[in-house]
Protein backbone atom coordinates (compact mmCIF):
# COMPACT_ATOMS: atom_id res chain seq x y z
CA UNK A 1 0.00 0.00 0.00
CA UNK A 2 2.97 2.37 -0.05
CA UNK A 3 3.39 2.24 -3.80
CA UNK A 4 6.10 4.44 -5.26
CA UNK A 5 5.20 7.24 -7.67
CA UNK A 6 6.95 8.76 -10.60
CA UNK A 7 7.26 12.51 -10.36
CA UNK A 8 8.64 15.17 -12.65
CA UNK A 9 10.18 18.26 -11.10
CA UNK A 10 12.25 21.17 -12.33
CA UNK A 11 15.18 21.92 -10.03
CA UNK A 12 17.30 24.98 -10.78
CA UNK A 13 16.02 24.98 -14.36
CA UNK A 14 16.72 21.29 -15.00
CA UNK A 15 13.97 18.68 -15.40
CA UNK A 16 14.19 15.42 -13.46
CA UNK A 17 11.91 12.38 -13.57
CA UNK A 18 12.31 10.04 -10.62
CA UNK A 19 10.34 7.31 -8.87
CA UNK A 20 9.93 7.95 -5.14
CA UNK A 21 8.36 6.39 -2.07
CA UNK A 22 5.59 8.63 -0.61
CA UNK A 23 7.48 9.05 2.66
CA UNK A 24 10.62 10.47 1.02
CA UNK A 25 11.15 14.00 2.35
CA UNK A 26 11.92 16.71 -0.19
CA UNK A 27 15.24 17.36 1.61
CA UNK A 28 16.30 13.73 1.18
CA UNK A 29 15.06 13.68 -2.41
CA UNK A 30 17.30 16.63 -3.22
CA UNK A 31 20.33 15.27 -1.35
CA UNK A 32 20.14 11.53 -1.94
CA UNK A 33 18.08 11.04 -5.08
CA UNK A 34 19.39 14.02 -7.06
CA UNK A 35 22.77 14.39 -5.33
CA UNK A 36 22.16 18.08 -4.64
CA UNK A 37 23.77 18.16 -1.21
CA UNK A 38 23.82 21.94 -0.93
CA UNK A 39 20.49 21.80 0.93
CA UNK A 40 21.34 20.93 4.54
CA UNK A 41 19.34 18.96 7.08
CA UNK A 42 19.53 19.95 10.75
CA UNK A 43 16.49 19.23 12.87
CA UNK A 44 13.97 17.54 10.55
CA UNK A 45 11.07 19.24 12.30
CA UNK A 46 10.94 22.70 10.84
CA UNK A 47 12.79 24.58 13.56
CA UNK A 48 16.32 25.25 12.28
CA UNK A 49 15.73 26.46 8.71
CA UNK A 50 18.86 24.77 7.28
CA UNK A 51 16.77 22.89 4.69
CA UNK A 52 14.92 25.95 3.34
CA UNK A 53 14.39 25.90 -0.45
CA UNK A 54 12.05 27.79 -2.77
CA UNK A 55 9.07 25.99 -4.35
CA UNK A 56 7.08 27.86 -7.02
CA UNK A 57 8.43 31.14 -5.70
CA UNK A 58 7.86 30.64 -1.96
CA UNK A 59 10.43 29.56 0.62
CA UNK A 60 9.51 26.30 2.35
CA UNK A 61 11.04 23.77 4.70
CA UNK A 62 12.30 20.83 2.61
CA UNK A 63 12.07 18.62 5.73
CA UNK A 64 8.31 19.26 5.98
CA UNK A 65 7.26 18.35 2.44
CA UNK A 66 7.28 15.02 0.66
CA UNK A 67 8.81 14.63 -2.80
CA UNK A 68 5.51 13.14 -4.07
CA UNK A 69 3.88 16.50 -3.38
CA UNK A 70 6.24 18.21 -5.82
CA UNK A 71 5.09 16.60 -9.06
CA UNK A 72 5.08 19.29 -11.75
CA UNK A 73 6.60 21.94 -9.49
CA UNK A 74 9.62 24.20 -9.77
CA UNK A 75 12.26 24.11 -7.05
CA UNK A 76 15.17 26.46 -6.43
CA UNK A 77 18.05 25.37 -4.20
CA UNK A 78 21.30 27.00 -3.18
CA UNK A 79 23.06 25.34 -6.14
CA UNK A 80 20.88 27.46 -8.43
CA UNK A 81 22.12 30.77 -7.00
CA UNK A 82 25.68 30.44 -8.22
CA UNK A 83 28.75 28.34 -7.63
CA UNK A 84 32.45 28.69 -6.92
CA UNK A 85 33.89 31.22 -9.32
CA UNK A 86 30.51 32.77 -10.09
CA UNK A 87 28.76 33.63 -6.85
CA UNK A 88 25.62 35.72 -7.18
CA UNK A 89 25.40 39.12 -5.50
CA UNK A 90 23.89 37.71 -2.29
CA UNK A 91 26.48 34.93 -1.99
CA UNK A 92 29.23 37.44 -2.72
CA UNK A 93 27.87 39.72 0.02
CA UNK A 94 27.86 36.79 2.49
CA UNK A 95 31.52 36.17 1.61
CA UNK A 96 32.52 39.82 1.81
CA UNK A 97 30.75 40.41 5.15
CA UNK A 98 31.84 37.17 6.89
CA UNK A 99 28.21 36.02 7.08
CA UNK A 100 29.27 32.39 7.46
CA UNK A 101 31.70 30.41 9.51
CA UNK A 102 31.01 26.66 9.46
CA UNK A 103 28.48 27.16 6.66
CA UNK A 104 25.90 24.72 7.98
CA UNK A 105 23.09 27.26 8.13
CA UNK A 106 24.20 29.12 5.01
CA UNK A 107 22.10 27.39 2.30
CA UNK A 108 18.94 28.01 4.35
CA UNK A 109 19.97 31.58 5.12
CA UNK A 110 20.61 32.27 1.44
CA UNK A 111 17.31 30.79 0.25
CA UNK A 112 15.34 32.61 2.98
CA UNK A 113 17.13 35.85 2.09
CA UNK A 114 16.40 35.25 -1.61
CA UNK A 115 12.67 34.98 -0.84
CA UNK A 116 12.81 38.08 1.40
CA UNK A 117 14.71 40.14 -1.18
CA UNK A 118 12.12 39.34 -3.83
CA UNK A 119 9.07 40.15 -1.69
CA UNK A 120 9.86 42.64 1.01
CA UNK A 121 11.29 46.15 0.96
CA UNK A 122 13.61 45.35 3.91
CA UNK A 123 13.74 49.06 4.68
CA UNK A 124 14.95 48.44 8.23
CA UNK A 125 17.36 45.96 9.76
CA UNK A 126 14.55 44.90 12.07
CA UNK A 127 12.66 43.72 9.00
CA UNK A 128 15.67 41.65 7.94
CA UNK A 129 15.95 40.15 11.43
CA UNK A 130 12.25 39.38 11.54
CA UNK A 131 12.50 37.64 8.15
CA UNK A 132 15.44 35.53 9.34
CA UNK A 133 13.84 34.60 12.67
CA UNK A 134 13.20 31.05 11.49
CA UNK A 135 16.83 30.31 10.62
CA UNK A 136 19.28 29.33 13.33
CA UNK A 137 23.02 30.00 13.15
CA UNK A 138 25.31 28.68 15.90
CA UNK A 139 28.42 30.53 14.66
CA UNK A 140 28.06 34.07 13.42
CA UNK A 141 25.82 35.75 15.97
CA UNK A 142 23.68 36.87 13.00
CA UNK A 143 25.10 40.39 12.85
CA UNK A 144 27.20 39.72 9.74
CA UNK A 145 24.31 37.97 8.03
CA UNK A 146 22.12 41.05 8.54
CA UNK A 147 24.98 43.23 7.21
CA UNK A 148 25.38 41.07 4.11
CA UNK A 149 21.67 41.27 3.28
CA UNK A 150 21.65 45.00 4.01
CA UNK A 151 24.54 45.39 1.53
CA UNK A 152 22.45 43.73 -1.19
CA UNK A 153 19.31 45.80 -0.47
CA UNK A 154 21.24 49.06 -0.27
CA UNK A 155 21.54 51.37 2.71
CA UNK A 156 18.58 51.72 5.05
CA UNK A 157 16.95 55.14 5.31
CA UNK A 158 19.04 57.12 7.83
CA UNK A 159 18.44 56.38 11.46
CA UNK A 160 17.04 52.87 10.93
CA UNK A 161 20.07 50.81 9.92
CA UNK A 162 21.89 51.37 13.15
CA UNK A 163 19.23 49.99 15.49
CA UNK A 164 21.13 46.81 16.19
CA UNK A 165 19.06 45.73 19.18
CA UNK A 166 15.48 44.59 18.71
CA UNK A 167 12.95 44.26 21.45
CA UNK A 168 11.61 40.95 20.20
Amino acid at each position, binding site marked *: *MTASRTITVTVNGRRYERTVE*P*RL*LLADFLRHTLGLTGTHVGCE*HGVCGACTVIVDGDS*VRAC*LMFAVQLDGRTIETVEGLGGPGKLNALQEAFRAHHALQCGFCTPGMLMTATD*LLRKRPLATDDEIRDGL*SGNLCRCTGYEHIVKAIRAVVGPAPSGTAANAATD*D
Partner: protein
Amino acid sequence: MKPPPFDYVVADSVEAAVALLGQSAGEAKIIAGGQSLVPMLNFRLLRPALLVDINAIAALSFVEDAGHEIRIGALTRHRQLETSPVIATHLPVIAEAMGHVAHLAIRNRGTIGGSLSHADPAAELPMLALLLDARLEIASGGGRRDVAAGDFFRGALSVALDDGELLTEIRIPKLPAATGWGFAEVARRHGDFALAAIATTLTVADGTAVDARIAMTGVADRPLRATVAERLLLGQAVTADLLERVAAVARESVTPGSDVHASADYRRHLVGVLVRRAMDEAWRRAQRGAA
Protein backbone atom coordinates in the same frame (compact mmCIF):
# COMPACT_ATOMS: atom_id res chain seq x y z
CA MET B 1 14.18 10.83 12.03
CA LYS B 2 12.36 9.68 8.92
CA PRO B 3 8.60 9.17 8.69
CA PRO B 4 7.11 5.67 8.76
CA PRO B 5 5.77 4.29 5.46
CA PHE B 6 2.32 5.38 4.32
CA ASP B 7 0.32 5.45 1.13
CA TYR B 8 -0.46 8.79 -0.42
CA VAL B 9 -3.37 10.08 -2.43
CA VAL B 10 -4.29 13.51 -3.77
CA ALA B 11 -7.94 14.50 -3.29
CA ASP B 12 -9.08 17.06 -5.85
CA SER B 13 -12.45 17.86 -4.25
CA VAL B 14 -14.05 17.96 -0.82
CA GLU B 15 -16.27 15.03 -1.87
CA ALA B 16 -13.25 12.95 -2.90
CA ALA B 17 -11.44 13.78 0.33
CA VAL B 18 -14.32 12.79 2.62
CA ALA B 19 -14.97 9.64 0.57
CA LEU B 20 -11.32 8.61 1.05
CA LEU B 21 -11.49 9.39 4.77
CA GLY B 22 -14.76 7.47 5.06
CA GLN B 23 -13.27 4.36 3.41
CA SER B 24 -10.16 4.22 5.56
CA ALA B 25 -11.67 3.46 8.98
CA GLY B 26 -9.62 5.93 10.98
CA GLU B 27 -6.32 4.90 9.37
CA ALA B 28 -6.02 8.03 7.20
CA LYS B 29 -4.75 11.53 7.98
CA ILE B 30 -5.39 14.70 6.05
CA ILE B 31 -2.29 16.63 5.04
CA ALA B 32 -2.81 20.37 4.52
CA GLY B 33 0.29 22.54 5.01
CA GLY B 34 2.05 19.67 6.74
CA GLN B 35 3.76 22.07 9.14
CA SER B 36 2.46 20.28 12.24
CA LEU B 37 1.71 16.85 10.76
CA VAL B 38 5.10 16.19 9.14
CA PRO B 39 7.08 16.91 12.33
CA MET B 40 4.84 14.37 14.10
CA LEU B 41 5.46 11.85 11.30
CA ASN B 42 9.20 12.52 11.41
CA PHE B 43 9.15 11.87 15.16
CA ARG B 44 6.97 8.80 14.50
CA LEU B 45 4.32 10.05 16.90
CA LEU B 46 1.79 9.10 14.20
CA ARG B 47 1.68 6.12 11.83
CA PRO B 48 -1.23 6.68 9.46
CA ALA B 49 -1.72 4.09 6.68
CA LEU B 50 -2.77 6.80 4.24
CA LEU B 51 -2.18 10.52 3.76
CA VAL B 52 -4.98 12.35 1.96
CA ASP B 53 -3.44 15.47 0.42
CA ILE B 54 -6.00 18.31 0.18
CA ASN B 55 -3.60 20.90 -1.28
CA ALA B 56 -5.09 20.52 -4.77
CA ILE B 57 -8.62 21.54 -3.64
CA ALA B 58 -8.51 25.11 -4.93
CA ALA B 59 -12.09 25.71 -3.74
CA LEU B 60 -10.84 25.55 -0.11
CA SER B 61 -8.47 28.48 -0.52
CA PHE B 62 -10.16 31.88 -0.30
CA VAL B 63 -10.85 34.93 1.83
CA GLU B 64 -14.21 36.47 1.02
CA ASP B 65 -16.18 39.44 2.26
CA ALA B 66 -19.72 38.04 2.49
CA GLY B 67 -21.42 41.17 3.85
CA HIS B 68 -22.08 40.50 7.53
CA GLU B 69 -19.25 37.99 7.84
CA ILE B 70 -15.86 37.05 6.48
CA ARG B 71 -15.55 33.56 5.02
CA ILE B 72 -12.15 31.88 5.02
CA GLY B 73 -11.43 28.60 3.23
CA ALA B 74 -9.72 25.97 5.39
CA LEU B 75 -6.75 25.72 3.01
CA THR B 76 -5.98 29.44 3.17
CA ARG B 77 -2.28 29.78 4.00
CA HIS B 78 -1.04 31.80 6.97
CA ARG B 79 0.77 34.05 4.48
CA GLN B 80 -2.50 34.77 2.64
CA LEU B 81 -4.22 35.79 5.89
CA GLU B 82 -1.25 37.96 6.81
CA THR B 83 -1.39 39.86 3.52
CA SER B 84 -5.13 39.78 2.64
CA PRO B 85 -6.66 43.27 2.21
CA VAL B 86 -10.05 41.89 3.33
CA ILE B 87 -8.54 40.65 6.60
CA ALA B 88 -6.58 43.90 7.08
CA THR B 89 -9.80 45.91 6.68
CA HIS B 90 -12.32 43.83 8.59
CA LEU B 91 -10.35 41.61 10.97
CA PRO B 92 -7.10 43.50 11.58
CA VAL B 93 -6.51 41.59 14.82
CA ILE B 94 -5.91 38.49 12.66
CA ALA B 95 -3.50 40.34 10.36
CA GLU B 96 -1.58 41.56 13.39
CA ALA B 97 -1.44 38.13 15.05
CA MET B 98 -0.25 36.34 11.90
CA GLY B 99 3.09 38.10 12.18
CA HIS B 100 3.59 36.05 15.35
CA VAL B 101 2.67 32.67 13.83
CA ALA B 102 5.91 30.82 13.09
CA HIS B 103 8.29 32.05 10.42
CA LEU B 104 8.18 33.03 6.76
CA ALA B 105 8.74 29.56 5.24
CA ILE B 106 6.23 27.97 7.62
CA ARG B 107 3.62 30.67 6.97
CA ASN B 108 4.05 30.01 3.24
CA ARG B 109 2.70 26.46 3.78
CA GLY B 110 0.67 26.35 7.00
CA THR B 111 -3.12 26.72 6.73
CA ILE B 112 -5.86 28.04 9.00
CA GLY B 113 -7.73 24.73 8.79
CA GLY B 114 -4.60 22.85 9.80
CA SER B 115 -3.91 25.17 12.71
CA LEU B 116 -7.47 24.91 14.08
CA SER B 117 -7.62 21.12 13.56
CA HIS B 118 -4.20 20.59 15.13
CA ALA B 119 -5.14 22.79 18.13
CA ASP B 120 -1.75 23.37 19.68
CA PRO B 121 -2.49 24.84 23.15
CA ALA B 122 -0.19 27.81 22.42
CA ALA B 123 -1.36 28.57 18.87
CA GLU B 124 -2.75 31.97 17.91
CA LEU B 125 -5.49 31.04 15.41
CA PRO B 126 -7.58 28.89 17.80
CA MET B 127 -7.53 31.83 20.24
CA LEU B 128 -8.66 34.20 17.49
CA ALA B 129 -11.45 31.84 16.41
CA LEU B 130 -12.68 31.86 20.01
CA LEU B 131 -12.29 35.63 20.38
CA LEU B 132 -14.20 36.38 17.19
CA ASP B 133 -17.02 33.82 17.73
CA ALA B 134 -16.08 31.96 14.55
CA ARG B 135 -18.22 29.15 13.20
CA LEU B 136 -16.45 26.19 11.66
CA GLU B 137 -17.98 24.33 8.73
CA ILE B 138 -17.31 20.63 8.60
CA ALA B 139 -17.94 18.15 5.77
CA SER B 140 -18.18 14.36 5.93
CA GLY B 141 -19.69 11.53 3.93
CA GLY B 142 -22.89 12.11 5.93
CA GLY B 143 -23.26 15.78 4.90
CA ARG B 144 -22.27 19.09 6.44
CA ARG B 145 -22.53 20.60 9.90
CA ASP B 146 -21.16 23.63 11.61
CA VAL B 147 -19.88 24.13 15.12
CA ALA B 148 -19.07 27.22 17.18
CA ALA B 149 -15.39 27.76 17.99
CA GLY B 150 -16.34 27.60 21.68
CA ASP B 151 -17.46 23.97 21.23
CA PHE B 152 -14.65 22.93 18.87
CA PHE B 153 -11.56 22.94 21.08
CA ARG B 154 -11.62 20.05 23.55
CA GLY B 155 -8.08 19.89 24.87
CA ALA B 156 -4.46 19.76 23.77
CA LEU B 157 -4.40 18.58 20.12
CA SER B 158 -8.02 17.55 20.51
CA VAL B 159 -11.00 18.99 18.63
CA ALA B 160 -14.59 18.11 17.77
CA LEU B 161 -13.74 16.42 14.47
CA ASP B 162 -14.46 12.75 13.79
CA ASP B 163 -12.17 10.56 11.69
CA GLY B 164 -14.23 10.99 8.54
CA GLU B 165 -14.58 14.76 8.82
CA LEU B 166 -12.90 17.63 6.99
CA LEU B 167 -12.93 21.23 8.17
CA THR B 168 -13.84 23.25 5.08
CA GLU B 169 -14.50 26.83 6.07
CA ILE B 170 -14.27 29.36 8.88
CA ARG B 171 -16.96 32.06 9.12
CA ILE B 172 -16.26 35.11 11.24
CA PRO B 173 -18.90 37.78 11.91
CA LYS B 174 -17.69 41.32 11.20
CA LEU B 175 -17.13 43.43 14.28
CA PRO B 176 -19.63 46.19 15.09
CA ALA B 177 -18.64 49.81 14.41
CA ALA B 178 -16.67 51.52 17.19
CA THR B 179 -14.96 48.26 18.10
CA GLY B 180 -11.30 48.36 19.00
CA TRP B 181 -8.96 45.38 19.22
CA GLY B 182 -5.69 44.46 20.83
CA PHE B 183 -3.11 41.72 20.56
CA ALA B 184 -0.14 41.07 22.83
CA GLU B 185 2.20 38.09 22.96
CA VAL B 186 5.38 37.02 24.69
CA ALA B 187 7.45 34.23 23.08
CA ARG B 188 11.05 33.19 23.62
CA ARG B 189 11.93 34.23 20.08
CA HIS B 190 9.84 36.05 17.48
CA GLY B 191 7.74 33.42 15.66
CA ASP B 192 8.01 30.76 18.36
CA PHE B 193 4.88 29.44 19.99
CA ALA B 194 3.58 31.87 22.60
CA LEU B 195 4.43 31.53 26.27
CA ALA B 196 1.19 33.45 26.56
CA ALA B 197 -0.78 35.60 24.14
CA ILE B 198 -3.94 37.66 24.56
CA ALA B 199 -6.36 39.04 21.99
CA THR B 200 -9.14 41.48 22.84
CA THR B 201 -12.02 43.40 21.34
CA LEU B 202 -13.97 46.23 22.92
CA THR B 203 -17.10 47.85 21.55
CA VAL B 204 -17.88 51.30 22.86
CA ALA B 205 -21.08 53.38 22.80
CA ASP B 206 -21.44 56.80 24.47
CA GLY B 207 -18.04 56.46 26.07
CA THR B 208 -18.61 53.13 27.81
CA ALA B 209 -18.03 49.51 26.90
CA VAL B 210 -21.04 47.60 25.56
CA ASP B 211 -19.17 44.43 24.57
CA ALA B 212 -15.79 43.18 25.74
CA ARG B 213 -13.95 40.03 24.78
CA ILE B 214 -10.67 38.63 26.06
CA ALA B 215 -9.19 35.42 24.64
CA MET B 216 -6.04 33.73 25.91
CA THR B 217 -3.65 31.09 24.55
CA GLY B 218 -0.66 29.27 26.00
CA VAL B 219 -2.15 29.14 29.48
CA ALA B 220 -4.31 25.99 29.39
CA ASP B 221 -4.85 22.87 27.29
CA ARG B 222 -7.01 24.93 24.92
CA PRO B 223 -7.76 28.60 24.21
CA LEU B 224 -9.92 30.28 26.85
CA ARG B 225 -12.11 33.37 27.21
CA ALA B 226 -11.71 35.39 30.41
CA THR B 227 -15.45 35.78 30.83
CA VAL B 228 -15.50 37.15 34.37
CA ALA B 229 -12.88 39.77 33.51
CA GLU B 230 -14.83 40.64 30.33
CA ARG B 231 -17.97 41.41 32.37
CA LEU B 232 -16.14 43.87 34.62
CA LEU B 233 -15.78 46.17 31.63
CA LEU B 234 -19.46 46.34 30.63
CA GLY B 235 -21.06 49.74 31.13
CA GLN B 236 -17.72 51.24 32.16
CA ALA B 237 -15.36 53.83 30.76
CA VAL B 238 -11.94 52.24 30.75
CA THR B 239 -9.50 53.73 33.25
CA ALA B 240 -6.04 52.59 34.31
CA ASP B 241 -7.59 51.44 37.57
CA LEU B 242 -10.26 49.36 35.86
CA LEU B 243 -7.68 47.82 33.51
CA GLU B 244 -5.65 46.80 36.55
CA ARG B 245 -8.67 45.04 38.06
CA VAL B 246 -9.60 43.34 34.77
CA ALA B 247 -6.01 42.13 34.39
CA ALA B 248 -5.95 40.80 37.96
CA VAL B 249 -9.20 38.88 37.49
CA ALA B 250 -7.97 37.37 34.21
CA ARG B 251 -4.69 36.41 35.86
CA GLU B 252 -6.47 34.67 38.72
CA SER B 253 -8.74 32.82 36.29
CA VAL B 254 -5.96 30.71 34.77
CA THR B 255 -3.96 27.77 36.10
CA PRO B 256 -1.24 27.31 33.48
CA GLY B 257 1.34 24.53 33.54
CA SER B 258 5.11 24.76 33.97
CA ASP B 259 7.48 23.50 31.30
CA VAL B 260 11.06 24.10 30.12
CA HIS B 261 10.01 27.38 28.51
CA ALA B 262 8.29 29.07 31.45
CA SER B 263 6.97 28.40 34.94
CA ALA B 264 3.27 28.48 35.77
CA ASP B 265 3.79 31.61 37.88
CA TYR B 266 5.54 33.43 35.06
CA ARG B 267 2.77 32.52 32.60
CA ARG B 268 0.13 33.75 35.03
CA HIS B 269 2.08 36.97 35.50
CA LEU B 270 2.19 37.39 31.71
CA VAL B 271 -1.59 37.02 31.48
CA GLY B 272 -2.01 40.04 33.76
CA VAL B 273 0.51 42.16 31.87
CA LEU B 274 -0.74 41.17 28.40
CA VAL B 275 -4.46 41.58 29.22
CA ARG B 276 -3.78 45.09 30.47
CA ARG B 277 -1.79 45.92 27.33
CA ALA B 278 -4.18 44.34 24.82
CA MET B 279 -7.32 45.83 26.42
CA ASP B 280 -5.72 49.26 26.63
CA GLU B 281 -5.00 49.02 22.89
CA ALA B 282 -8.60 47.97 22.21
CA TRP B 283 -9.96 50.90 24.24
CA ARG B 284 -7.76 53.42 22.40
CA ARG B 285 -8.72 52.01 19.00
CA ALA B 286 -12.44 51.92 19.91
CA GLN B 287 -12.35 55.57 20.86
CA ARG B 288 -10.63 56.50 17.62
CA GLY B 289 -13.26 54.48 15.75
CA ALA B 290 -16.12 56.10 17.65
CA ALA B 291 -14.80 59.62 17.17
